[in-house]
């Protein structure tokens, strides 16, 4: 059997924590030795590092998985889906990951891996985020991509999806690290986004094709998100958000952590403001991240400076904010009549200066 088949077999094994999988491989010296080891030898190899409840059951599982035909069949299937396995010994394997104790044995990749030596930033945050957070993620993704930074995130709902979408809009490369096999689409509504990310970057996972999105996969894949990036930016996170796990792993890995400040007291700012309190770097504008590599934001002429609005329009425009405001509260602030306000809002929307992300609520659209 060829070397790569041994790797494919070992990387496809389940029922192992990332740390145990890495340690076992290290003790054995390679996947081939594990394939060839008898039950006794395997017990000796696994024993000192095994932390689970049922060591014999685990040995049964490993012995049972050693079927050459099934490994070959699975590898052919993966090939058919356009999925490659990059084992940790491969030259293409990201060097950023190799140095960690719980380094994945290999990465299943659809598309390509991030280019080493090119700046890469991870943008992470809450799934059920606010419109403001979504806008911020999209803008940040776009500006980073325009500056040539690779954007890495988790292809989840909310901030993740918006960051990817922004990067695609900015014409850059973006990579999604998944908590399921690279052939599975989760969540299903991101299907189109998956396709485009694969086209312009890659889908990366340590789980073999066919693996479902199990809850414990997600904290584990966060270490890969952070490991592939030079820095991690947390955009919006509640007190117990998974994005905070990524941030703490990033700190362990010695990466720079950025947090976007939010209003004190807001639920979705609790996590990011907590990070700032604990010493994370502040993300006040895109430049904060770009300065890490000495990059500058590409210049574009701001429309706003050329603007010359009529009196009522200006009054309404000033009241608009990045936060959503209801029509009723805008009327209370501007003191305009419903008819006049309606005219102003529709005009601003037509001029691209305001948007209505949700029925009856307006927010400003600046710096587009």
């Amino acid at each position, binding site marked *: 059997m060829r070397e790569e088949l041994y790797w494919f077999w070992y990387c496809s094994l389940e029922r192992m924590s990332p740390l145990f999988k890495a340690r076992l491989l290290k003790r054995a010296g390679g996947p081939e030795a594990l394939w060839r080891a008898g039950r006794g030898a395997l017990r000796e190899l696994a024993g000192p590092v095994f932390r689970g409840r049922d060591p014999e059951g685990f040995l049964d599982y490993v012995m049972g998985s050693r079927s050459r035909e099934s490994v070959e069949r699975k590898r052919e299937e993966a090939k058919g889906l356009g999925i490659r396995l990059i084992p940790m010994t491969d030259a293409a394997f990201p060097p950023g990951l190799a140095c960690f104790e719980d380094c994945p044995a290999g990465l299943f990749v659809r598309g390509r891996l991030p280019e080493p030596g090119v700046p890469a930033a991870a943008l992470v945050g809450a799934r059920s985020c606010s419109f403001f957070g979504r806008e911020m993620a999209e803008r940040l993704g776009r500006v980073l991509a325009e500056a040539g930074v690779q954007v890495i995130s988790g292809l989840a709902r909310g901030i993740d999806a918006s960051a990817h979408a922004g990067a695609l809009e900015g014409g850059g490369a973006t990579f999604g690290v998944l908590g399921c096999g690279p052939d599975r689409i989760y969540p299903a509504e991101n299907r189109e986004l998956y396709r485009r990310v694969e086209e312009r970057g890659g889908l990366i996972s340590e789980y073999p094709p066919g693996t479902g999105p199990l809850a414990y996969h997600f904290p584990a894949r966060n270490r890969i998100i952070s490991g592939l990036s030079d820095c991690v930016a947390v955009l919006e996170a509640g007190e117990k958000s998974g994005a905070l796990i990524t941030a703490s792993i990033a700190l362990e890995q010695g990466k720079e952590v950025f947090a976007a400040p939010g209003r004190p007291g807001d639920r979705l700012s609790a996590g990011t403001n907590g990070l700032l309190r604990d010493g994370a770097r502040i993300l006040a504008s895109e430049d904060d991240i770009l300065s890490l590599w000495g990059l500058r934001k590409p210049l574009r002429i701001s429309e706003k400076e050329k603007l010359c609005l009529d009196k009522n329009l200006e009054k309404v425009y000033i009241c608009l904010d990045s936060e959503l405001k209801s029509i009723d509260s805008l009327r209370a602030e501007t003191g305009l009549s419903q008819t006049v306000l*309606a005219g102003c809002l*529709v005009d601003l929307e*037509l001029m691209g200066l305001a948007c*209505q992300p949700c029925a009856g609520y307006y927010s400003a659209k600046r710096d587009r």
Partner: protein
Amino acid sequence: MYSKVYSAAVRGLSGQLVTVEADLSDGLPGFDMVGALSGEVKEAMARVKTALKNCGFRLPPKKVVVNLAPASLRKFGTAFDLPIAAAVLSALGQIPGAALAGTLIVGELGLSGQVRPVPGVMAMVECAVKSGLGRVLVPRSSEQEGAAVPGASVYGVSSLGEAVDCLRSPGSATPVSLADSPSGERCREPEVDFQDIRGQEGAKRAAEIAAAGMHNLLLIGPPGGGKTMLAKALPGILPPLSKQESMEVSRVYSVCGLLPRGQALVRERPFRAPHHTVSAAALTGGGPLLRPGELSLASGGVLFLDELAEFSRQALETLRQPLEEGRVLVSRVHGSAWFPARFLLAAAMNPCPCGYFPDRNRCRCSDRQIQRYQSKLSRPLLDRIDLRAVTGEVFPADLKGQGKGEPSASVRARVEKARALQARRFAGTDLSFNSMIPPRMIPAFCPLGEKEEAFFEKALSALRVSARAYHRILKVARTIADLEGEERIGTEHLKEAILYRMEQIYY
């Protein structure tokens, strides 16, 4: 001895003539009733026998047979008690047969002989007029209702004795005349006035436009935002019922037995707010009697569906035909009937299951949950709703300190003016409101000037407005212009209409 009396059964909104025949013969004493009778009609036997005894009539030990013809028509209700008693008395020779010819009798009997009200008196009197019966005996508490129908002399009776006297000596009683002529004035102010609603100016303005052009309205907002209050205030800004409308509403209410006691006609705009657990049949109407449902009870007024997303899909889909045609067809095994259903739909819903979206500090619903919640409303239903208004949360602090708002009466004055313009515009067509303009007639009724046309085109493409919404925006703009008393639709009218457009709720 044989006798016959005319009575009526109600099916749908119309009465059907029923002949009550009675025959006394020798044989084993007994009382038999035939003619496809349901339980409550069979029970009439006990009531009639006892009432006769208590009014001093002795039923001889003879064989009595009562038949309700046409015998194939299934009969329901208690309106046949009085005609059965009259037929038996006539068979006994107590009432001359000639006195019963040309008379229609309805009423429920109590054991003491008192006559109790029955539903549908209006339809029964109409049936009498149609069948050429000039005299109608009805329960006293329903006499006004009967008198509202032109062409018949209606006599109200409160007891069996009175009914017998009235039949024996026709000259002794005088027919009922309509006590209060149905003038346009409303008798009672609706329970919520516009000036009692604080804030919510946007939603109030949308309600005004809805009332002026009969545009259906969807209110979206968090719980406690005054959606229900606003809907309850809607009937108060609609113009008063015309005489014809009042008759149509009263006919439905009469059949359902919901007319206010002693009142001839319904004067207020109906306001119906069925609970969200309502079944499809309760909305459209149905049952063996083909009774009208909530949609018809709301006809001429406001149908308020609170928590729209919580209604069953089946119930919501039944709204489609009535919203399109202004009437609803109820078909059952025994027959079918058209009921009026020309109502103003005011629906309210929360934006998400918890109700606080987009306030992310309070709403923790995921995007999926929100989408699923909103997708309960089908596209075809949303297509029939022209206006969307968002209500905000009202805090106790907002409730005090502010001056009173504009009272309903002055809003109603504007609405009436806009209605007058519409009446002039649609004279000679079968349309009555802006919301009814079909797409092919939009260019004729909602013409745009060159400048407006250019603006509208630009706005449609920039805001990605669907073709469906195009007509709705134009119709709403027409109504806004009418409210301003403008003959031409201006850009400011279009802009306001765009603000209320009923596109997807979230983008």
